[in-house]
């Protein structure tokens, strides 16, 4: 055993400092630094920190705009194709090109496969491990005992008799469901490769459409795999319902873990080629026709589902991050194409000026900036809840989506899955939950996997109809203008994604991508408002049975991982216990806090 090196926070608060850096089982490097109150069993303070800077917005300046999707795909290694897609959307707007319908259906099929793959591997092979038998045994042995005695309500659907059987199946490598999920993550990526060439950085995606050869075979190969996935989801939705419902029962109060105010953002995904012409002028209308409806949801109410309004409200604050402010620098866009004023702190006008410096939790402590959404009064620290909870919530409230396979009702989303190899037609209904917390973020992820599969059935029908009608063109010519403006909106797997581009002299003059993780992992902003991870972890109750010396921080990890973190960044925390803990003879980065 490694000797614990817990230490009291140097601020006389009786809290204990703890940090997790790097956090495993996420994509990228995230550190969480905390102060924990072991007496009250609560997290008192949390700081989220990212330890990587790469500088895309810096090195993209002056490059050919057509290179943008190839370059920005490399921002993320698990959802790079979401970036490539978003960049292609922004380029389509700037070049004034509308791809053939078939090209759009193929992109939608690729992106649906990405959701199916990525949510699956994250849910079962990364997050799932936090709920596996081995982890529960090491953190809450009492809960495991109860799980052994608790029959799984949906055993008939998923085949596991008790909750503990579900937990065992999630044990890394040994667990059969864990291994099955790894296999599922592979054939869903094959589906992706059928449509976009390669995972995770697509090869066949271009502004103007795709280079994919749309044959009958392409759709047969895709659909055969898709139906296997549909069958798989008929087991997985009830399995996760059983598992997550059990935690509410076994640990009363677990709804508080990772809970924060409902402040959700969704930028919409999966365009409908019947309506989407990629013009800024019509963006409000075609945005509302997306197969995942954009929306901002505050305290359970829909604030807007208008992409133009969403666009104009985005603000980038620097807060506690390592950058120089760009105030007084050139403003690229003063008005949008509709004549609305564009704020100097909007991504179209941002200048990224790195200022590397020591990490200091009293001041600057991360490479992640603080994106906020300005509602005219407040700078809202929106989160994405890891993507699905915001997408389902926004889609449900707007009530605009209805493909037969998926229907939004105004208060829920109904997902209808057809008959498969061994299972009959099945419907699931995702209902708006009472809380935005760790368990509901995770539950929504499972439902959204079913949603993506159901949508893919619709897209495949549409695409195949084009092929059968002989309309096999998938790409449309375009020209790059000397001066231009573009914005792309979509949903990366873990939430909102926007790419803002300004073209001058035929080159990229400004390019600022905003993926979900800067929203979720953002630091305390200029006004002192903490970012969503920080906010959700602060005041998370501690249910783990271990003493501070053997403490793993599982409840904190569950809170953080529920957001599906994806970035080079870190999370550090403080645990509190009142009595003196071993004091380290050297200061850590946090010890300067409050003193």
């Amino acid at each position, binding site marked *: 055993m490694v000797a614990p090196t817990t230490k009291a926070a140097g601020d006389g608060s009786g809290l204990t400092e703890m940090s*997790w850096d790097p956090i495993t089982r996420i994509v990228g490097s995230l550190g969480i630094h905390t102060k924990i109150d072991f007496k009250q069993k609560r997290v008192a303070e949390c700081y989220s920190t990212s330890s990587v800077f790469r500088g895309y917005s810096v090195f993209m300046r002056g490059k050919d705009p057509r290179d943008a999707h190839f370059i920005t795909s490399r921002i993320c290694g698990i959802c790079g194709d979401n970036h490539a897609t978003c960049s292609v959307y922004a380029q389509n707007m700037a070049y004034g090109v509308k791809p053939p319908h078939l090209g759009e259906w193929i992109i939608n099929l690729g992106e649906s496969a990405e959701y199916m793959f990525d949510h699956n591997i994250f849910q079962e092979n990364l997050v799932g491990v936090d709920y596996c038998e081995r982890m529960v045994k090491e953190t809450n042995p009492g809960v495991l005992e109860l799980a052994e005695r608790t029959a799984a309500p949906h055993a008939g659907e998923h085949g596991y008799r008790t909750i503990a059987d579900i937990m065992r199946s999630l044990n890394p490598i040994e667990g059969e469901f864990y291994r099955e999920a790894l296999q599922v993550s592979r054939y869903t990526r094959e589906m992706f490769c059928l449509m976009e060439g390669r995972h*995770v950085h697509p090869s066949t995606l271009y502004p103007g459409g795709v280079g994919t050869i749309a044959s009958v075979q392409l759709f047969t190969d895709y659909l055969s795999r898709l139906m296997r996935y549909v069958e798989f989801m008929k087991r997985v939705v009830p399995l996760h319902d059983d598992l997550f419902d059990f935690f509410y029962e076994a640990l009363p109060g677990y709804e508080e873990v990772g809970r924060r105010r409902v402040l959700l953002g969704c930028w919409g995904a999966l365009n409908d080629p019947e309506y989407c012409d990629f013009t800024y002028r019509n963006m409000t209308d075609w945005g509302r026709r997306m197969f995942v409806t954009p929306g901002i949801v505050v305290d359970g109410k829909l604030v807007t589902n208008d992409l133009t309004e969403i666009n104009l409200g985005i603000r980038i604050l620097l807060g506690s991050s390592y950058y120089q402010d760009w105030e007084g620098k050139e403003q690229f866009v003063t008005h949008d194409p509709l004549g609305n004023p564009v704020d100097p702190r909007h991504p179209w006008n941002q200048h990224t000026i790195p200022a590397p410096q020591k990490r200091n939790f009293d001041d600057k402590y991360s490479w992640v900036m603080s994106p906020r959404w300005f509602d005219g009064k407040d700078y809202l620290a929106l989160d994405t809840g890891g993507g699905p909870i915001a997408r389902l919530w926004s889609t449900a409230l707007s009530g605009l989506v209805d493909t037969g396979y998926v229907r939004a009702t105004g208060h829920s989303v109904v997902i209808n899955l057809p008959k498969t190899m061994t299972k009959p037609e099945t419907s699931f209904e995702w209902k708006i939950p009472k809380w935005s917390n760790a368990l509901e973020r995770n539950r929504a992820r499972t439902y959204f996997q079913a949603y993506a599969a159901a949508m893919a059935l619709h897209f495949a029908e549409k695409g195949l109809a084009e092929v059968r009608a002989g309309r096999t063109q998938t790409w449309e010519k375009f020209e790059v203008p000397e001066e231009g403006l573009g914005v792309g909106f979509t949903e990366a797997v873990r939430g909102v994604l926007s790419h803002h581009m300004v073209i001058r002299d035929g080159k990229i003059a400004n390019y600022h991508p905003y993926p979900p993780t800067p929203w979720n992992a953002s630091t305390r902003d200029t006004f002192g408002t903490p970012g969503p991870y920080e906010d959700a972890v602060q005041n998370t109750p501690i249910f783990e049975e271990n003493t501070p010396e053997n403490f793993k921080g599982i409840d904190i990890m569950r809170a953080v991982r529920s957001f599906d973190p994806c970035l080079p960044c870190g999370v550090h925390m403080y645990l509190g216990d009142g009595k003196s803990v071993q004091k380290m003879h050297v200061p850590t980065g946090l010890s300067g806090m409050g003193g």
Partner: protein
Amino acid sequence: MNAPSPATATAPDAAGPAAEEESPIHILWINAGLSCDGDSVSLTAATQPSIEEIALSVLPGLPKIAVHWPLIDFECGPVQGADNFIEWFFKGERGEIDPFVLVVEGSIPNESIKPEGYWCGFGDDPLTGQPITTSEWIDRLAPKALAVVAIGTCATYGGIHAMEGNPTGAMGVPDYLGWDWKSKAGIPIVCVPGCPIQPDNFSETLVYLLHQATGAAPMIPLDDQLRPTWLFGATVHEGCDRAGYYEQGQFATTYDSPKCLVKLGCWGPVVKCNVPKRGWMNGIGGCPNVGGICIACTMPGFPDKFMPFMDEPPGGKVSSAASGVYGSVIRKLRSITMHTVDQEPKWRHPGEKLATGYRPPW
């Protein structure tokens, strides 16, 4: 992936009888270069063999291994408490786990071009409370490693983050350690390029090295850019099923054409990569074979020497016009281009001056 099974039984308190059996080969994986983690993610798609097959030593002759891989590691405890993931890296530095293979993912930023702070870090230094930079980890661990493996084009040659005008001075592991660097076991840096890696290309290289570690395989054969020769010996064009169209002089004029893409920006004729032949995963997907121009993502000259990607490569006109002419002329012309693009741009190197063209504001 750590310690879930007999193959990776490395619980720190199991140092008793278990340790006397067969001690595992550790794999220390640093994903905190300037990367997107795409190589880690890509490896989970491998099927020949898969990660679970490697972890459970399923292939004949594979030794017991213990993988310390951030992407899917079970361990997630706090730095100050139980099951701390980063502790394995300190053990590696202290010589407490031997042998280990060091895998580096992401390009190495130049930390000496600025007065303070860090471009990228991995865990914290208990002495200062500041992040330990990736280059510092390489300094600490490379001398103790059985082998150093660079996974993906960022770690091998710098890649996207080492593009002209970059602020971080990013470079590949061989630029950082030196191209002639050898491990204490005499193994040069092993480079598996690709943005990201083709999944099986990496799992196969890892298997080769594990076999070499047990004495079953001879020294891994590498070319002058430190790539496994059997994976990177042929060009994209040589393995592309659209090469027949090239031969017939039939070139695509739109990206959705099934013909040869060389006039629309495909660099296949001079790029060393087996993807069109092997497919992207499980034989499915790829690049020019399925309608995606080859942007040369495996090459040392990537991306700068191939941009703008969607323009016809210079020299493409000559060789495609003469595509009816076989033999030495074409090969000669191509080898000149190939030599140029098989070298990194000149600004990817260590030192205190940033040479990428970016003017530092600090």
